[in-house]
């Protein structure tokens, strides 16, 4: 039960001690948050659009079965094959089967959080298929064998010289003496290495930011244009996505697109926003011969019936992470889950179906900043509190429960409260020994190891109040 939290604690400890990560978190994550502020300020309708986005998502979720069937009907009419996956395993099976039927050996991918969620790369590799990530950040962490540390900037924890070293190790057929000191050099090298893969790939896998029920289209946004190439060059395109991504019409998608890039990176719109409707049409000069959409459930339908339903509104912008003081201090790896930050704290335990991850909800100060920036108004704090309540109700939480029961008793009995406060204040004053600060505290040394506790000056507030000068008998 405590294992996941201690994993988080260990990860957080390592993150806090990593100066490069700390700098990256300040620059990149903080930069996104500032850019978001500017973009929101430049669009007076932003607040109204948030309400609209919330309503669109709530309406779609309340009729999810019907909108998925409508999407399936229209996508099928446009020539797309629609597949349904109940579990992560089912989704991997479906993708693998499509790859086998296409006689695929090389697969390119653009960034897909759903593919991370279902562990697709490992599954494809086990089937002796070569998988290449094309999003630059994803490619970097793929060659390093790491996990993404942010949902929209997966490699923010890496510096230019780390990447140069990796490229020299990895791209051995290039001249050893080449210049790799500037980001421009590294981007050009990655482009040169990845383009032939894109041209040679048999299957291209992308995610989807939205599915449009009325037209049977998938919408994919990127800044690199890698998703567009990934879906255009191979003979088979697979859209791997999940059931809550559907919206009714294109006009609904436009409303959400007005929020997505602004909330994510502070851009007006991403460089590439692409609607894809089916495969190559007769007489087309390019495009894949087949287009598949895989609709993953993996716990989402249960969430729909629970008191956590609102989390399914999420459009994966990452704003709740960029503005989170806890994420800002420890980064994404510490969460040990595909979805980090406040969103991850709510979503991960639901998707993994284990109580362990429920303790991620402890990694929050409940300051509420995530709710303020969420473009679809997910009440993230209330939802995290539900996980805290759930883990509190668990047998293993007897110590917490006992302590809170004692606290409840003391708070309701003024005499007991006075007594306890007097003892506490006296003990702390004694521990401070006149220095004004407590350097070590019995039973709470994990707290005092990193900071000093200012000591009370010896009397309780109530006693001082009772003796304040104005009240003294003259």
């Amino acid at each position, binding site marked *: 039960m405590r294992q996941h939290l201690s994993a988080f604690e260990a990860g957080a400890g390592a993150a806090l001690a990593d100066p490069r990560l700390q700098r990256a978190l300040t620059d990149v994550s903080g930069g996104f948050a500032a850019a978001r502020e500017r973009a929101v300020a430049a669009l007076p309708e932003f607040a109204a659009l948030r309400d609209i986005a919330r309503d669109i998502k709530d309406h779609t979720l309340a009729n999810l079965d019907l909108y998925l069937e409508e999407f399936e009907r229209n996508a099928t009419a446009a020539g797309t094959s629609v597949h349904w996956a109940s579990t992560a395993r089912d989704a991997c099976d479906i993708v693998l089967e499509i790859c086998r039927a296409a006689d695929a050996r090389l697969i390119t991918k653009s960034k897909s959080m759903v593919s991370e969620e279902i562990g697709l790369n490992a599954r494809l590799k086990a089937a002796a298929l070569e998988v290449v990530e094309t999003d630059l950040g994803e490619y970097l962490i793929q060659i390093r064998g790491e996990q993404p540390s942010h949902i929209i900037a997966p490699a923010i924890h890496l510096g230019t010289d780390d990447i140069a070293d990796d490229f020299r190790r990895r791209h051995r057929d290039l001249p050893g003496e080449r210049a790799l000191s500037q980001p421009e050099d590294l981007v050009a090298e990655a482009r040169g290495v990845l383009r032939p893969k894109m041209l040679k790939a048999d299957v291209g896998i992308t995610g989807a930011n939205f599915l449009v029920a009325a*037209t049977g289209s998938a919408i994919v946004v990127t800044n690199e244009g890698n998703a567009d190439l990934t879906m255009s060059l191979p003979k088979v395109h697979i859209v791997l996505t999940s059931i809550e991504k559907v919206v009714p019409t294109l006009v609904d998608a436009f409303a959400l697109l007005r929020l997505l890039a602004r909330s994510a990176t502070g851009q007006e719109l991403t460089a590439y926003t692409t609607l894809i409707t089916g495969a190559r049409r007769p007489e087309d000069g390019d495009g894949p011969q087949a287009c598949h959409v895989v609709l993953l459930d993996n716990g989402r339908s249960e969430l729909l019936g629970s008191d956590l339903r609102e989390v399914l509104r999420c459009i994966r912008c990452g704003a709740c992470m960029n503005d989170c003081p806890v994420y800002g201090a420890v980064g994404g790896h510490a969460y040990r889950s595909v979805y980090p930050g406040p969103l991850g704290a709510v979503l991960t335990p639901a998707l993994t179906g284990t109580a362990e991850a429920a303790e991620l909800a402890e990694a929050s100060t409940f300051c509420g900043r995530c709710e303020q920036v969420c473009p679809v108004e997910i009440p993230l704090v209330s939802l995290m509190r539900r996980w805290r309540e759930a883990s509190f109700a668990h047998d293993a939480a007897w110590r917490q429960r006992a302590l809170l029961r004692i606290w409840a008793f003391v708070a309701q009995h003024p005499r007991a409260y006075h007594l306890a406060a007097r003892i506490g204040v006296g003990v702390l004053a004694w521990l401070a020994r006149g220095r004004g600060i407590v350097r070590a505290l019995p039973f709470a040394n994990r707290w005092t190891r990193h900071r000093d506790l200012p000591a009370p000056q010896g009397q309780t507030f109530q006693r001082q109040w009772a003796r304040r000068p104005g009240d003294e008998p003259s």
Partner: protein
Amino acid sequence: MSRPKVLARICTALRVDPLDTARQRAVAARLAGPVRHVVPARCRQEKPQLARQFEGFLGAQGADVIKVGEPGEIPGAILSYLRDCAVPLAVRKGSDPYLAALPWTTAPGLAVQSGAARPSDTAGLSRAVAGVAETGTLVLASDPHNPATLALMPETHLVVVDSETIVGSYEEAQRRLEAELGPGVLPRMLNFISGPSRTGDIGGRLVMGAHGPRRLAVLIVATE
């Protein structure tokens, strides 16, 4: 078979009867529309203001804006742009009638080819069906005459936009598209492009030309 399982679980979660016709009617009505949401005020301006805003956003997003007085000037403008960028004087376009009708012989030295993009191409030329002033966004629709790869593979991408097609919002661009293709018809690929390809994944610094075009030139045809 996951489909019935997933749909049944959704209906259980929502506590609804899948055969409830009232729900089906409500959803059908919502889909039939018209659906209208708040559209930013910046989309509702006079034509000249919209055109200025369109150019302003494109420039801020890293695109080069080139204005020409009439379509006949396009080949020459492309030639001098490629020369200024010191890249090969060659361009590939689709068989789009608008582009095919341009006086290509007025740009001697410019090699013009037709068809879908090839790996060796250095510049691609497309025609936008609309320009969206809301965010400085080009709308490109794929069809047999307009291969989508021309906008993606070459390092330089050139796009012709007729100033008449500059609209305020994404919704208006969609209406323009429907006027061209027919109601409810979408191309296989509909690209909303708002600048050259970019990445911030290395050291947090913005670098152009991640996978798609390194430079994007927008040729706006403003016939007086």
